């Protein structure tokens, strides 16, 4: 069943066929791992190892420094060779560099006899927190924080985001195909942590196989919780939190509000999968699944990769490049970040790495707005990106501020649809930054 959808949105070429249905394989364990201390929203973790220390796989190496923060673990066993500032997808920051050596003890894999019924909500929270789980859809917000809403808010529904509306990316699709039972278990654990019974999984209807896989498990398992899987219209940004909630429940998260304001917590498919591993096996988040795609990579696919593996090693393992890519993007092409160096490592929030050719990316100059209104029609938040862009371009932040730039979710639909190639979401970002600075 397909629900009516949110306002606006766009239909970019999906380009998911490149890696669609490709089973997960493991990328090679990197010889040197670069593990940044801030892979999440909030305060950076504090390194608790010294140069020369020998660490085990999954050992805590960076400690959360506050409530909105997350632990960081060693992705490989080995020796800490340096703790220094390195380039990451976010910013230059302290990074623990580990040279792999010794045995993979894999302590976490041994304990799979644990039952969900035997674990309390309290324990679940502690395990998620100590495993350093963050939102794996890209924003990397510490999951433990999301799972402990203030006591005055009443949460009634968990929404699991399997929309995967970004072009190219197929990792969540593949997770649902490969591990439907594990994902349902992860949902049950998350529901228990929240103390609620109702969960809805939202999946775009271009992944109908994933929908069926999950529904089949639900029929077999017959969970006591009220878990349902809904196919959604394929339209970007269907996976944006507010749009997903609106499509599934008809509720609008208030302007500048959070999902919990309408009684909802949203978790990504990859996150509930990681939650299960953390809770049942005490497995810290030191590896994740990603999509490697784009026309310029020889062996695109869906891979399991250790956090801290640099792009250059992934390229080598994926058969090298077909030529010079025009852009390398961490994440999807709509919201992902372009990087200028292949030394940048995969972090917790990395859902994909794209090696795009010149004809796949936008390029060239922009020209003045022709007021076509395509950005207005595309904006899922009901903003006027054209006017915001022109105001910022003319340094009139006073005018821009009256146009609600803070409500922008940075989906990029406006820039995508602009025939004048105007970087509208970039302009709006500047307006947002200006407001932050003033505060």
């Amino acid at each position, binding site marked *: 069943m397909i629900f009516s959808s949110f*306002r606006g949105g*766009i239909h*970019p*070429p999906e380009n998911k066929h490149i890696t669609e249905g490709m089973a997960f394989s493991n990328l090679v364990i990197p010889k040197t791992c670069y593990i940044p201390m801030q892979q999440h929203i909030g305060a950076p973790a504090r390194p608790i190892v010294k140069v020369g220390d020998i660490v085990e796989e999954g050992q805590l190496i960076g400690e959360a420094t506050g409530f909105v923060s997350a632990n960081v673990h060693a992705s490989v066993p080995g020796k800490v060779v340096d703790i220094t500032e390195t380039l990451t997808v976010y910013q230059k920051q302290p990074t623990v560099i580990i040279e792999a050596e010794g045995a993979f003890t894999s302590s976490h894999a041994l304990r799979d006899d644990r039952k969900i019924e035997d674990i309390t909500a309290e324990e679940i929270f502690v395990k998620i927190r100590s495993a350093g789980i963050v939102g794996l859809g890209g924003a990397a917000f510490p999951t433990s924080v999301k799972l402990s809403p203030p006591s005055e808010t009443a949460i009634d529904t968990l929404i699991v985001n399997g929309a995967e509306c970004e*072009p190219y990316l197929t990792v969540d699709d593949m997770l649902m195909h490969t591990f439907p039972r594990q994902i349902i278990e992860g949902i049950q654990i998350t529901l228990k942590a929240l103390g609620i019974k109702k969960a809805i999984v939202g999946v775009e209807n271009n992944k109908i196989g994933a929908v069926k896989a999950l529904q089949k498990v639900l029929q077999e398992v017959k969970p006591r919780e009220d878990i349902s899987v809904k196919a959604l219209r394929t339209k970007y940004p269907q996976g944006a939190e507010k749009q997903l909630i609106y499509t599934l429940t008809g509720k*609008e*998260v*208030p*302007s*500048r*509000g959070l999902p919990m304001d309408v009684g909802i917590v949203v978790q990504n498919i990859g996150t509930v999968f990681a939650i299960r591993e953390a809770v049942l096996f005490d497995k810290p988040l030191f590896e994740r699944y990603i999509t490697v795609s784009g026309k310029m990579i*020889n062996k695109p696919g869906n891979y399991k990769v250790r956090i801290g593996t640099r792009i*250059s090693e992934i*390229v080598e393992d994926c*058969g*090298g*490049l*077909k030529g*010079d*890519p*025009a*852009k*390398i993007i961490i994440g999807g*092409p*709509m*919201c*992902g*970040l*372009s*990087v*200028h*160096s*292949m030394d940048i490592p995969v972090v917790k929030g990395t859902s994909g790495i794209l090696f*795009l050719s010149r004809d*796949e*990316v*936008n390029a060239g100059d922009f*020209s*003045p707005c*022709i*007021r*076509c*209104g*395509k950005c*207005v029609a595309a904006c899922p*938040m*009901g*903003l*006027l990106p*054209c*006017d915001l862009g022109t105001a910022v371009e003319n340094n009139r932040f006073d005018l821009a501020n009256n146009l609600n730039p803070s*409500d922008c979710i940075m989906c*990029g639909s406006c*820039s*995508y*649809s602009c*025939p*004048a190639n105007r*970087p509208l*979401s970039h302009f709006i970002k500047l307006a947002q930054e200006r407001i932050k600075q003033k505060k």
Partner: protein
Amino acid sequence: MSENGNKGSNALLAVSSPPHIRVINSIPSIMWTVVIALLPAMAFSVYSFGLRAALVLVTGAVSAVIAEAIMQFLLKKPVTVKDGSAVITGILVAMNVPPQAPLWMVSIGSFFAVIIVKQLFGGLGFNIFNPALAARAFMLASWPVQMTTGWHTFQGVSVLAGNVQNTMGLPEKAFDALTQATPLAAFKEGAKLLGEYNITIQQLSDFLFSPQMLKTHFMGNMGGCIGETSAMLLLLGGIFMLYRKVITWHVPVSFIGTVGILTLAYYNLIGYPSPHMVALSNILSGGLFLGAFFMATDMVTSPVTGKGMLLFGIGCGIITFVIRIWGGYPEGVSYSILLMNALVPLIDRFLKPKLFGT
């Protein structure tokens, strides 16, 4: 390169803020799509008015391109004549004049449109008024005779001639008055002829609004400006633009719909014979399709929101209706659009989309 992945580290990588992909529709592709959408109507004008129409069209387009190049050169801006926007303006200027209009007038019209109305306001994206329509108003004020004569004389138009001579026995003079001008002009003129030639309003109505005539209007076998005659081919172009997402339905539907509904209501109210035929005739002639699909939809001079576009179209429809019924001109499409162009900033200020979560 493909031998060694690491070598890629040395490649120059472009870095920019997201998104990294964009829609294929660029300004040139939009503009040239509009030109393609205008082709059937242009071809038809050459078919019905002769090579003279082609000459006028080429003059209009070439003059506009030259004017744009000169202005951009003088203003030290990048010369963007290849984007097709000047070509459209020139074609539309030419489509808005009678087939026998003097070429120098068309050329001056195009220069006025591009230099005064477009470039002096800042170029594409900054003009307040539709350049081609402002040029039409300028030409109508400057050369009223050349703009309202020079209609095409159809040789032995069987439909009209047959109708007139057989059913009404109109004198030749009245026949000329009715058939040489545009249909709406004939309608207005017709009222004057009622007394002069002692014909009844029923007879006039039967003549002007027979199903045969409406078919003629739709197909375009009638007098008029170069580009306005064939509602059918203009509609075809409009549908093509809708399909290519170059325009949206809001303005054409609300504009044409408003004119239709108001005309129908008015002629019902005054008890005119067959009001629905008058309404249909009003919709199909007087450049309404040209205006509603190709000029009122001009992105730069129409509102940016769907709601705004609807209001804009309704406003255009009301003004067109008022001018046609009570105004001094037989048509009213161009002035209605120009007047509504002036209201666009106001419409955009007050009709904003609903902010999500409010």
